[in-house]
């Protein structure tokens, strides 16, 4: 057992130590990234559970989040979704597809000039609401939804 490694593990909760360890190349960045993946949220089978695991269950409906997606998607395997949050200081966006087997699709954190204006492509198994939660720098949560009718599912098969 390597003493340095021990001290790194002990101090891992202090981000300064972790950053220093990263800088020194002691930890592979991938190890840190893996810890970022919110397993409970991504493996939740209900939108409500996934939102709760992401700390987003108290979101308030807002018209300032624009969810652009087709009304009818012919191919559920590739559904283009664009999201713009016009809420000032939006620092995170989370995208849920309520009726998917695992509703949480993707979550983004923005910093250093990145704006809450993203485009993506999602799989949708069934006709469902696409639910987007925006989080502001002071921790306020807002939500908007858009229904997409799917004529051929993108999951299973």
């Amino acid at each position, binding site marked *: 057992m390597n003493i340095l490694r021990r001290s790194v593990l002990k101090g891992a909760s202090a981000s300064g130590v972790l950053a220093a360890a990263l800088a020194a190349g002691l930890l592979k960045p*991938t190890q840190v990234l893996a810890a*970022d993946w919110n397993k409970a949220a991504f493996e939740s089978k209900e939108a409500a559970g996934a939102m709760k695991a992401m700390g987003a269950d108290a979101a308030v409906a807002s018209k300032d989040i624009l969810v652009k997606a087709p009304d009818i998607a012919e191919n559920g395997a*590739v559904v283009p979704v664009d999201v713009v949050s016009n809420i000032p200081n939006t620092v995170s966006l989370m995208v849920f597809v309520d009726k998917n087997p695992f509703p949480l699709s993707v979550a983004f954190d*923005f*910093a250093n000039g*990145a*704006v809450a204006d993203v485009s*993506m*492509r999602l799989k949708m198994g069934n006709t469902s609401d696409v639910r987007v939660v925006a989080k502001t720098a002071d921790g306020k949560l807002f939500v908007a939804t858009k229904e997409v009718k799917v004529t051929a599912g993108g999951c299973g098969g």
Partner: protein
Amino acid sequence: MASPMKIRAQLKGDIAEIKILMAHPMETGQRKDPKTNQFFPAHFIQHFSVELGGKVVVQSQVGASVSTNPVFGFKVKGAKAGDKVVVKWQDNKGESRTDEAAVA
């Protein structure tokens, strides 16, 4: 080894519009192989980050319901022509890939 990403970063005013195409199967683990009747094992990108000019601008957690060969678009203020864009992803099997481009 995964194929390279395609990254395009175009300057509009002082906003960089960054488009990323990642080559990845994004297998959900819910799909059955019709020959063996077994589920294809899950294999999907779980995390990626975008850096612009040396600073992390976007960090993302990704689930299996993002489409095969994921495409993402972002906008970042305060960009200059020539700024370096670095994108890194990592999947649930621990595979990873880093690619870069410059803002044009």
